[in-house]
């Protein structure tokens, strides 16, 4: 009867308010789910942030998680996009050790993987790449022999294909915004969650 474990990707819209990330993360921990990756940022709707959360669980677990997320007052919309046609992407920056001899080889690999070199120094190259986790894993594997100095990955973000998406109606958002000390000062930086 044991159901199969699978990576589930949830797109979660939350109100842009202090502490919301904490509430979501706390829920996963409390209910015994491990977050594999979580990415968060602003959206097309002011006042709403969007999280993409990847969790390893079975179908029943995924359904319960969705129902539990909806119980959080600040959660606006939840969709498990695992089974729907969707685009999954992750961004990585990879700092690779290079020498005069190896730099050309590394640059060729960058080309083959349609990545970009964004910083070139005498002893290193920083490569930026976007793609599925598999593609990034592949690039990392071929670069590893040269020496991976530093790797950072954003975690998965997802978008459903076609005109309809996982969106929230701005009219749904409450009029009362965050106040006082919590109000974000720099519009570029999300202090929301």
């Amino acid at each position: 009867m044991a159901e199969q474990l699978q990576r589930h990707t949830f797109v979660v819209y939350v109100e842009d308010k202090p502490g919301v990330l904490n509430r979501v993360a706390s829920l996963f921990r409390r209910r015994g789910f491990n977050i594999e990756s979580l990415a968060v940022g602003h959206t097309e709707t002011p006042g709403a942030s969007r999280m993409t959360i990847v969790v390893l669980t079975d179908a029943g677990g995924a359904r319960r998680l969705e129902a539990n997320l909806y119980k959080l007052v600040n959660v606006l919309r939840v969709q498990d996009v695992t089974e729907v046609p969707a685009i999954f992407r992750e961004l990585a920056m990879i700092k690779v050790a290079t020498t005069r001899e190896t730099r050309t080889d590394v640059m060729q690999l960058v080309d083959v993987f349609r990545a970009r070199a964004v910083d070139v120094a005498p002893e290193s190259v920083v490569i930026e790449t976007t793609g599925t986790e598999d593609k990034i894993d592949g690039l990392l594997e071929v670069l590893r022999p040269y020496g991976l100095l530093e790797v950072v990955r954003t975690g998965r973000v997802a978008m459903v294909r076609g005109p309809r998406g996982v969106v929230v109606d701005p009219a749904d958002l409450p009029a009362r915004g965050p106040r006082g000390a919590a109000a974000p000062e720099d519009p570029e930086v999300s202090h929301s969650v």
Partner: protein
Amino acid sequence: MASMRTGAQIIWEALVREGVTTVFGYPGGAILPAYDALLDYPIRHVLVRHEQGATHMADGYARASGQVGVAVATSGPGATNMVTGIATAMLDSSPIVCITGQVGSRVIGTDAFQETDVTGVTLPITKHNYLVSHVDDVAPTIHEALYIARSGRPGQVLIDITKDAQQASTELQWDPGDVKLPGYRPDLRASDTEYSRAADLINGSKRPLILAGHGVLLSGAMAQVRELAERANIPVAMTLLGIGGFPALHPLNLGMMGMHGEAWVNQAIQEADLLLALGMRFDDRVTGNTKTYAPNARKVHIDIDPSEFNKNVKVDVALAGDLASVLDDLAPRVTAGDRKGWLDAIRDMKGEVAVRDIQNLPDSGHLYAAHVINDIWRLTGGKAVIVTDVGQHQMWEAQYYHHDEPRSLITSGGLGTMGFALPAAIGAKLARPDAEVWVVAGDGGFQMTMAELATIAQEKIKINVAIINNGYLGMVRQWQEFFYERRYAATPLLSPDFAKLAECFGLTGLRIDRRQDVVPGVEKARAAEGSVVIDFRVEQEDTVYPMVPAGADLHKMIRRPSSAPIVETADDE
């Protein structure tokens, strides 16, 4: 400028406008502005002796009345003392709002005096919480908090209000209208197909059983449950928290299910072909081993919280929504049936083990808790509100006090919090001043919060307290008896003289150790004007039967040994 108010004033003004008449609390530095303003508002403030008591009182108030209970405390230790009470309310879906003072917003994060991150601490044990650091947010937050607490699955909301937000002034703008919370959908509705599937399963079932839970009371669906049961002749079993949702003396009532439920109830569950779970969450004390639970039954689950579906037990049909309204919609699709074969079969299961009529047993010279509770039931005509603590006495209460009325048993089920009874009873009494309220507590749990006797004295409340004094942490001793070779580690318990203790608090104390004195003692307590504490010295090593060991199959109960005089048998002399 006429309507300028401080945040402190707005707290009370908002509560008054929300219909709150009573709060339970304890002052301190960070909540002092609010306390100063309290004197000008028509709210009864009950000064507790420990903030845990305040939360249990708010909880008891809510359980007795269905209204949201409100507790107030200061920052730091005041707020952390509330944690047990909030978690208790949460596991039993009891609606409470806690208001705590917080240090000034400018010093938050500096480890200021009595600063604790209370919204952080209570995050996993509240339905929602708020840190309010601006005076303009006080009124709308209180409005929102009460709405969230009472709507949907009832919950706990904590509002942490900084001292400067209490001190600052603003023009009070009270909008009593609907709360706008786009992410909050307490009013779910099941689809038509789900109704049809549920009705088909019910109409096609030969051996159906209703499992009535706390949701019956929370929804106020007693009439609907009864109508469904009677129309289709479906027997009803109750969870501990569902007790009172269906009349105990109704012929279709089976009694409590689960760990200490009657054997025939659990047997019926195991033999049923359909379980209709109404506002209950298949707690592990209800199911035992879920792998062998009700193996022959299809399951229909009605609950207001969809996260409960398929959590512990896989169900065939799940209907989300408020129970009363779901049953209103479902009832017309359910056909009448006599189900005589099934009812007869259950009567047969019952016949062999029906030992609950203990009144006519001869006096063996022993005083058993069961007799005490059964006598309280008879003398109060089953009409009292009984508030129990946690342990053996709690289970005996469930077995020997027969509740016909909703909200007449108040008990901590999910968290099993010792120390709950006395403060919760104070809350219940303030919610329903005309009700006869009894505490049934163990000698252990009573000592956890007995300081609240002073609250009873100060507030001049009439409550009767029955301490089932067995000299042990009895329920734990019972587990040691069964599962740890009778090695009674840390369960024998020395207690003060409870009768004398009551006198110290200015109340009346009695001690009873013979069965013939129970009835006069209970009568005396009922007739007394003030509160009476009765110390019932009962059989020390008595055992709650039957018992499904934790995680065991529901039908494999430890049954009352016929030889042992656990509860008096006719030949026990």
